[in-house]
C-alpha cells in the first residue's frame, strides 16, 4: 500500500478554521475548529468517529478533510501529501478518487429531477474509473457492496426509493472510485431506527472486506461505540478527548465526555437519569470563553480553568485536554 513515511493515511496536524463575522464595523473571530490533531493509520483500516454536539466543529473539520474548505492554519496530509497544496489536476485525478463523502440527508444529496443511476454513471465515467464497455458491471459491483443491484435502481428517481435505499445508493456512489477513505457526515441521523443499523453495519463490512477507512461523524454515541475503533470528542472547536472507543466511551476521563455519555438515553428503564444537569445558556459565550471551553458547565472546574487553556495530556491510552490530568500517568479513578 502506498503511504507516507510515517505510515499515516490521514494526518490532521494542528488544524484551525477561524470564521470572521462582521457586524457593522466590528469583526468577531470564531474558531470553529481550534488546533485539531487526529491521525488515521494506513496499515490498518479503521472507523474513526468524530462526536460532539451541534456547533462543535465536526462538520467544519469534515469539510476541511474533504478539501471543501481551506484551513486557516495547520496542515492536513493525506497519504503523506499536504492536501492544501495540490494542483487542480491532482485534486481531481487523485485526491477526489481517494477520498469520498456521504452526507446526512440522502434526499438532499440527489436532485429529485434526475434519475439516481445517472450519478453513478457520471462518477464512474468522469473519474475515468472504467471505460464505457465495463461501466455497468463496475456500478453493479459497487451497488452489490451495499446490498442493492443495478436492476433495482436503474431509471428510478430518488422519490421512488426509501430513505434507507437512497442512502445506500449514496454510499455506493462514493465506492465507485475505489476510495481508501470515506467521510460520512451524520449518515444515519435522518433514517429510521430499523434501517439505521443496516447502514452502520455496512461501514463495518466496508472496513473489513474492502479495507476502506471511514471518518464517521455523529452525535449519536451509541452507534459510535458500536461501529468505531477510535473516537474523537469535540467541544466548541476543540478535540477534548481522543483514543480507542472502548477507553474513551467505556471509561471517559474528560468531564465533558462524562456528561455526554451520561446523557445518552439508554433503552433500559432501570437506568433512568437521576441527577439533573445544567445546560449552556448561551452558545456564543462558550466559543469566546477564555481558558477551557467547558469551564462554565464543568462540575470539577478549577480556578485556573477559567484563565488558561489546558494542553493535551496522554493518560491511559488516550489524549485528554483537561488540567485534571496534567500530572502525566495519573491513575484512572
Amino acid at each position, binding site marked *: 500500500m502506498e503511504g507516507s513515511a510515517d505510515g499515516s493515511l490521514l494526518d490532521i496536524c494542528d488544524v484551525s478554521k477561524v470564521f470572521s463575522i462582521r457586524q457593522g464595523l466590528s469583526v468577531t473571530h470564531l474558531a470553529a475548529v481550534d488546533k485539531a490533531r487526529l491521525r488515521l493509520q494506513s496499515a490498518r483500516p479503521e472507523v474513526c468517529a468524530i462526536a460532539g454536539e451541534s456547533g462543535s466543529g465536526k462538520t467544519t473539520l469534515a469539510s476541511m478533510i474533504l478539501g471543501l474548505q481551506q484551513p486557516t492554519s495547520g496542515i492536513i496530509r493525506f497519504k503523506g501529501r499536504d492536501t492544501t497544496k495540490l494542483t487542480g489536476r491532482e485534486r481531481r485525478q487523485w485526491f477526489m478518487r481517494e477520498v469520498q463523502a456521504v452526507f446526512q440527508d440522502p434526499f438532499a444529496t440527489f436532485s429529485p429531477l434526475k434519475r439516481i443511476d445517472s450519478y453513478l454513471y457520471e462518477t464512474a465515467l468522469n473519474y475515468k474509473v472504467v471505460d464505457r464497455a465495463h461501466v455497468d458491471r463496475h456500478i453493479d459491483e459497487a451497488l452489490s457492496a451495499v446490498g442493492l443491484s443495478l436492476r433495482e435502481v436503474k431509471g428510478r428517481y430518488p422519490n421512488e426509493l426509501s430513505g434507507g435505499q437512497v442512502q445506500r445508493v449514496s454510499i455506493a456512489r462514493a465506492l465507485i472510485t475505489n476510495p481508501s477513505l470515506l467521510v460520512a457526515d451524520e449518515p444515519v441521523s435522518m433514517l429510521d431506527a430499523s434501517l439505521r443499523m443496516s447502514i452502520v453495519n455496512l461501514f463495518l463490512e466496508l472496513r473489513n472486506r474492502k479495507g476502506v477507512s471511514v471518518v464517521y461523524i455523529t452525535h449519536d454515541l451509541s452507534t459510535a461505540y458500536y461501529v468505531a475503533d477510535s473516537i474523537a470528542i469535540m467541544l466548541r472547536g476543540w478535540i477534548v478527548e481522543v483514543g480507542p472507543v472502548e477507553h474513551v466511551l467505556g471509561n471517559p476521563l474528560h468531564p465533558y465526555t462524562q456528561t455526554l455519555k451520561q446523557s445518552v438515553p439508554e433503552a433500559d428503564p432501570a437506568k433512568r437519569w437521576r441527577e439533573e444537569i445544567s*445546560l449552556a445558556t448561551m452558545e456564543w459565550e462558550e466559543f469566546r470563553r477564555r481558558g477551557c471551553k467547558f469551564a462554565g458547565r464543568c462540575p470539577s472546574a478549577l480556578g485556573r480553568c477559567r484563565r488558561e487553556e489546558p494542553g493535551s495530556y496522554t493518560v491511559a491510552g488516550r489524549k485528554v485536554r483537561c488540567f485534571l490530568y496534567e500530572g502525566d500517568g495519573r491513575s484512572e479513578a
Partner: protein
Amino acid sequence: MHIVADVQDLRAHYVTRAYGIQRTVKAVEGVSLQVRQGEIYGIVGESGCGKSTLLKVLMGEATPPLVVLGGSVRYSFGNQDYYPLSMTERELGRVRWQEVSYIPQGSMHLLNPVQRVRDTFRDFVSAHRPMRKAEIDDMVRGYVRHLGLPEQALSAFPHQLSGGMRQRVTIALATILSPKLVLADEPTTALDVVVQRGVLQLLKQIRESSGSTLVMATHDMGVQANLADRVAVLYAGKVVEEADTETVFRDPLHPYTQHLIRSLPKMGDKSQRISIPGNPPALDNPPPGCRFHPRCPVAREACKYEDPPLVEVAPGRRVACSLAVGRSAHGR
C-alpha cells in the same frame, strides 16, 4: 384510576384526489387507547407510522386532506367532558392550550422570527386570558423563572437563541396556561444528547409541578425508556403493543417490538446488531392481514389473511399478534 383521554377505534385517513383518482393513506387505523391522569404516555414508532397524525386528531386539528372516518375521542378533566371530534372551531378554541396543549414537531422553528420572545408570549396569553400587559409580563417572567430558564431569553429574538433554548422557550409557551394534558410530538428530535436531556428534564419538571398528563410521541426508544410510564408501539397506523415501560423493555411480546429493542446499539456492547429486513409499508396500500407479516421472522400462513386484534393478554398489557397471544396464554 382516572382516564384523562379515552380514544376508541379511531380511524383517520388522508384522502387526496388528483385527476379523478382518489388516493387514501390509512395513517391511523383503529387505534384505541386510554391515557391515565398524571402519567407520561409514550407513543413509539418509526416515521410514517401515524404518530403525528394521531396527535393531530387528538388535538382536534384534523383538516383536509386528513379526514376522521370513525371512532371517538373523549377528554375528561375533573367534572368536565369534551368531545373534540364533534366540537366547533369556536368551542375548540376554548379548550386548546388552556386544557389540552400541543408541542408540535420541530417546534423550535415556530417562534415568530421578527418578534422578541416576550412579545410572542404577550400575544399568546392575551388571546386566551383577559389580562393587562403588565400582569401578563409578570406572569410570563414568573413562569420562566419557575422553570429555571434565563430571563434574558425573553428579550432575545428567536435566532439569537440556541436550538435547545428555543425548544425550551416553546415548551414554556405551550404550558404557560397550565393545560391538563400536553401532547408532545418528537419534542427532542434534532437536539444533541446533552440538550435533549435538559429538555426532557424540563418536561418532567412541568408535569410534576403542575400535575398535568403528558403524551409523548417519539421514535427514540431510549427517550421512552427514560421517561414514559407506559408505552404504546405503533406500526403502520395500528397499536401493536401496549404495556408499562418496564414490561415492554424486559419482555416485549410483539415481534416488531422485539426487533426494535434488539436492534438498538448499547454502550459497552459491541456484539452485532441486525436491523429489521425490509421497509415499513406504504400506508396507501398496506399489506393484507397483519401489517407486519412481510417483515416478520415468525409469520405463519394465517398472518397473511387475518388481521390480529389488540388483545389484553395480562392486566394492563395488550398485544396485536396471534402468535404472541397464544404464547402468553401458554405461559400462564
